């Protein structure tokens, strides 16, 4: 096992996962000294009846909860002002975000405002500018997310907030909330998590604690993603994927983004394509590139990707390539079972070839990985065209 000379790790998240997990919320909130939570979610979750399940969990608890279920895909500051007023006037003391993406980003952003002053939204944008703990934040995942929910990041408009204090205090993973999503959404959410976890698991910046979270996330995804897309009624499989998504985010807070993550996000942004699908496409190409660099631990990745028996049964010198091939294999399976809806190339993911050069140059400029602009471009071109 790789052990660096110095390392740091923190995961302030408490995870509660499983049957009737939501019913533990009143006790958990009490332990966080909170009595009146405001639930924040999008219309999507409300439409699926998820909010009703949550409200039910508070029945008989004596706790009054507020619900705001109108977060749009691209929320703006007018919404935050409105929520700030609701939170303050309603005497709320904690926030529960239901569902990933904009609901969680809105909840985190609101938390910055209500824990201090609304002006903090201006002064705290950036890296580590939040100076003290925020109000208690709970995240209740569905099967749809961006991968940042349990991380230290919040994205709002054109601002990015990065702080340890933005990480949720509690994650409640309940099978009644992880209801089936369409194949693309399920895959996209899982592939962000796989990319976050796998890139960290092979990176020179890893340590035994990031390994533990990444290992668990990767194992869950490899054992369940294809099954769940084939059979969306697979409740335990869906719950496992939600676990993976939360754990990958926890690990991600402890490291710099990897190259597949950075390139996938940039390519997705440039063309309005799904970040997760782009990352999933890029992942094996980036890993292949890393094979020639020192300090990366590609062979180790075979263990969570393929399990004990395959890992142990594969000769040492073949483990790295086998790991990469396993991910190509996953891409192939996803393409097949989704009837082509989950693409295997950036071209099929609607990424325009024209943006590759610019994307590569930008990614290499801000990158923490060993790839230069030419290396990034080569990866993008390969992933665009496919094998």
């Amino acid at each position, binding site marked *: 096992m790789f*052990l660096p000379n*110095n390392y740091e790790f923190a995961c302030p998240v408490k995870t509660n996962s499983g049957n009737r997990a939501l019913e533990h919320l009143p006790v958990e909130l009490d332990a966080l000294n909170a009595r009146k939570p405001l639930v924040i979610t999008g219309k999507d979750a409300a439409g699926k009846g998820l909010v009703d399940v949550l409200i039910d969990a508070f029945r008989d608890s004596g706790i009054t909860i507020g619900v705001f279920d109108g977060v749009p895909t691209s929320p703006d500051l007018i919404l935050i002002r409105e929520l700030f007023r609701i939170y303050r006037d309603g005497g709320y003391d904690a926030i529960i975000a239901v569902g990933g993406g904009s609901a969680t980003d809105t909840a985190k952003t609101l938390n910055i405002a209500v824990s201090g002053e609304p002006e903090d939204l201006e002064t705290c944008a950036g890296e580590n500018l939040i100076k003290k703990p925020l109000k208690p934040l709970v995240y209740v995942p569905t099967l749809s997310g961006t991968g940042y929910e349990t991380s230290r990041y919040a994205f709002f408009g054109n601002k990015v907030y990065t702080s340890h204090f933005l990480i949720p205090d509690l994650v409640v993973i309940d099978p009644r909330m992880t209801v089936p999503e369409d194949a693309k959404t399920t895959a996209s959410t899982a592939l962000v998590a796989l990319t976050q976890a796998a890139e960290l698991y092979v990176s020179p910046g890893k340590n035994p604690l990031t390994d*533990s979270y990444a290992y668990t996330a990767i194992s869950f995804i490899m*054992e369940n993603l294809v099954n769940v897309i084939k059979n969306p009624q697979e409740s335990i499989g869906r719950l496992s994927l939600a676990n993976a998504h939360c754990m990958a985010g926890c690990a991600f807070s402890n490291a710099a983004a990897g190259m597949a993550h950075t390139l996938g996000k940039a390519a997705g942004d440039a063309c309005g394509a799904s970040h997760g699908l782009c990352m999933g496409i890029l992942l094996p190409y980036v890993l292949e590139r890393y094979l020639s660099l020192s300090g990366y631990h590609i062979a180790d990745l075979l263990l969570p990707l393929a399990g004990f028996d395959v890992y*142990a049964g594969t000769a040492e010198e073949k483990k790295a390539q086998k790991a990469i091939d396993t991910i190509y294999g996953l891409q192939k399976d996803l393409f097949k079972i989704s009837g082509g809806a989950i693409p295997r190339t950036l071209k099929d993911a609607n990424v325009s070839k024209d943006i590759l050069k610019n994307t590569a140059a930008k990614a290499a400029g801000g990158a923490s990985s060993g790839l230069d602009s030419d290396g990034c471009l080569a990866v993008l071109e390969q992933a665009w065209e496919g094998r």
Partner: protein
Amino acid sequence: MDLPGYYEFCCRVKIIAGHDALERIPGALADMNARKPMIVTDKGVSGAGLIDIVTDALKGGIVIGAIADDVPPDSDLRVVNRLANAYREQGCDSLIAVGGGSVMDTAKGVNIVVSEKADDLMKFSGANALKKALKPLIAIPTTAGTGSEVTQVAVIKDHEKHMKMAFVSYFLLPDVSIIDPRMTLTLPSAITAATGMDALSHAVEAYTGLAKNPLSDAHALAAIDLIRSNLVNVTKNPGDRNGRLAMASAATLAGMAFSNSMVGMVHTIGHSVGSVCGVPHGACMAIVLPYGLEYNKHKNGHLSAELLLPLAGSRVYTETPKPERAEKVIALIRQMNQDLHDATGGRHARFFKEVTDREGKPMVPKEKLPDIARTALSDGSIFYNPEELDYDDLLMVLEAAWEGKPLD
């Protein structure tokens, strides 16, 4: 990877590990807006020169408000109150606990008193009586074994009332744990061996126990892997700094694993031998571990079989047929005890009859075994053992572990 019907996992402690970890304490304190820590430790730790290493590392960065280096091995309420007074008199704003279980518990107790301005610590005993964050607490473990730097429990005695109070709260988790190999570099080889086996028993019982979960599993596997590659080496070569860091990391990982799952009969019996005969905890764990796996094999053999990969590596795992893996794991752990026995010139005991005190007197007389078995029946961990245990079962295991004979 199995997903249980329900589980919880939480370890909010920030881990700062490495060869320069101590030097990062001033930054960690500044992050928590603390400027004047009180150092809590015991005579053994300060006598070994470890506090000098810590204060050297803090030099220039911060002012140390007070150093209390006289926490006794069986600390109690009076010590907690005395230290809390010193904390207030010196105007401290945070705590650094350097040492083992008693020091950690005492520092946690002091933290409750000074943070809650409590006259009566008792008000905060039990589960979840604390409702808000306490003063910043940094834990620096000085053995690689107990994992107490990542647990949310404190046990504080009241010698006047003959009571033991348990405090359980996530707010009792240290904010930061510092894992620095300089803190374990001078541990004698027999203690290195015993504490390392203590960590192994945490990891193994977490992985094979009833309350396992995906995250406790992952932490346990990592701990076992590090222990396998380092424990015997470090016992032979105490000055191996990388090995020391690996063992300290493994102990923390194992602590995170077991404090988020449960331990079983290895701890049931270990606690009881400790309380009846005064044998150090780690020494008991080392002896009982293979017996626990043996006794539970028909219930959890499929889980102990998996441990062959982190315990022996790819080749042995593949070459051992699946039905034989659990046995092989048990054999390897026995071999580890043997190797540690050899590496310590016989001071690492393999069986209870080999455990001796400083004068070389046996600590576990055979006639005490029934006493130990009776004590074990009332240890809480017995309920979490995969297979049931009654008095006769316990006595049978104890007799075998005393003599050094495998179970049938």
